């Protein structure tokens, strides 16, 4: 039996992955920005018949109240981007700070923080988000963003801690310390630039997770309230009418998946272009 033992996986060139990711994400960013200045229809207006099929007037039809689905889909892009960016920003702010503090802290404090982080990670993102949303009396887009940001921060903190500790044992840190650099300066000059590449790839992945988690929250009825057309809520509303208007349950899902795949490809492409050890493959 002739078999090659180790063969490199057939992998498309990294530029292709990066470009595919950039195009998918760029499309959503463009749509989201466009939705700020121009929409085909009034988003809450009942501009057509109920559950119309796709036509030249309503590109992907209307929902059960006669609202234009394409308009809602465009707003959905904007909301998904806001959620992704907001959640990652909050997660990064809390997570990177905690992670760096843990890496610098004394042994026992570091151990305690590390153990707590591991347990927080065992709490699932979605359950934490459900709790935080429940805690804020009225569900709003912000409560979902804050909830997801908090949930993501434990993952970011753990990664930052591990990466920062790896940098802290380097000779140039010892050199910086002996030459009298203060530790905020060490963080700014030596640690952050060194861990940034790996962190940014991770942020892209977290972005995808946040978008999917927000859609799940909205689907469960715990997301942004009605005027905000989140893809998750669109899917929940369309589920009941899937027999008469299947496109309403398909289009928001496709939009969601294309954004999530886009950021994952972007992360993959970034990692390949940042990490020289992967370049050889």
């Amino acid at each position, binding site marked *: 039996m002739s078999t090659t*033992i180790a063969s490199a996986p057939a992998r498309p060139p990294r530029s292709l992955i990066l470009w595919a990711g950039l195009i998918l994400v760029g499309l959503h960013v463009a749509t989201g920005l466009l939705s700020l200045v121009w929409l085909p229809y009034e988003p809450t207006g009942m501009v057509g018949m109920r559950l119309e099929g796709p036509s030249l007037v309503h590109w992907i039809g209307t929902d059960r109240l006669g609202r234009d689905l394409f308009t809602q889909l465009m707003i959905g892009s904007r909301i998904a981007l806001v959620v992704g960016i907001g959640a990652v920003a909050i997660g990064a702010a809390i997570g990177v700070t905690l992670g760096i503090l843990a890496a610098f802290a004394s042994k026992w404090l570091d151990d305690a923080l590390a153990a707590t982080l591991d347990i927080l990670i065992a709490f699932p993102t*979605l359950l934490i988000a459900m709790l935080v949303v*429940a805690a804020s009396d009225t569900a709003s887009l912000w409560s979902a963003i804050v909830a997801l940001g908090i949930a993501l921060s434990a993952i970011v903190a753990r990664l930052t801690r591990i990466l920062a500790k790896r940098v802290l044992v380097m000779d140039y840190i010892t050199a910086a310390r002996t030459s009298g650099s203060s530790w905020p300066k060490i963080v700014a000059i030596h640690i952050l630039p060194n861990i940034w590449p790996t962190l940014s790839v991770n942020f892209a992945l977290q972005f995808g997770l946040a978008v999917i988690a927000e859609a799940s929250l909205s689907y469960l009825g715990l997301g942004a309230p009605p005027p905000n057309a989140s893809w998750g809520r669109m899917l929940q509303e369309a589920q009941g009418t899937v027999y008469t208007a299947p496109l309403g349950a398909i289009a928001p899902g496709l939009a969601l998946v294309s954004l999530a795949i886009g950021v994952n490809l972007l992360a993959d492409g970034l990692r390949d272009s940042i990490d020289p050890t992967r370049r050889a493959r």
Partner: protein
Amino acid sequence: MALPFRPGYSVPDKARIPPILAYTIRRTLILIASLFIAAVVLFVLLRLLPGDPANALLGVGATEQQIAAARAQVGSDQPLYVQFAAFIGNLARLDLGTSFVSRASVLTEIGNRMAVTLPLTLFGFVLAVLLALPLGILAAVRSDKWYGTAISVVSQLGIAIPVFWVGILLVTLFAINLRWLPSGGFPLRGWRNFGEAATGMILPSLTIGLVMGASLLRYVRAATLDVLGSDYLRTARALGASFPEALVRHGLRNGSVPVISILGIELASTFLGAVVIERVFSLPGLGSMLLLAIQQRDYPNVQGVLFVSTLLVLIIGFAADIAQRFIDPRLRGRVSAAA
């Protein structure tokens, strides 16, 4: 658990305790500590919820006396440390209290709901493993063929696709267009109505199995690629072992170590993914219990479901860690930071 500690030895020789046993003991202590921290986190999170839990007991326009009585009943008039001690004490005895809304025992209710969620999780998980193992190995071994690439491309969907959307699509196809299976629901008599209960489980389990299988596949493929590129496999081949023989005798054990820790994480997230899936298929499981409890501000139920789910997730992680040590003796001496 008895240590092999015979009288006559004043100090137990460290080497006489089998490393796997020492590890199990250490890991058990970590599990207990984790549970305690989880309880603290839960206590803090629940106290962050707005309003007094007692309000959930009352309607609008309750009098001062009624509010005071409700607070005494719930215990929210006590100082925080007293509340905390009572909270930990109750959890330790697995006394999860009674629901504010239905007045039923929370533990009993969780037990009833588990009859839906546990089978759902297990079927979905088994399906995911049955999909991921053969396809993941195939995708790695045949990565130079078109179907190997095709499998890994499709598996990328696993982390980009929301599980509830897959559920909606499967319902559209199998329940609405083809009319082969029910679109959701669970018989009132539960598993005593076995046929209906089992057919109701098919689509939800398939949904979980497909999504989890796809994300698991990526890890199986990566682990297999690592094994395929390893020196020990080449040595085994050079010593005359056939390719399948070398793969099974040397690759399986090595490759399964990283996969097992992922299996633990996937099993836990399968269990938690059931929250959303139960909504898609209107199944009366643990997830729908939590959702309803959050909407009704039914604190004992929220707390009970969250505690039991965290307990299960931590136990799954514990089991995965121990299993890893059984398979790979090199790990036994170490307690990982993630333990």
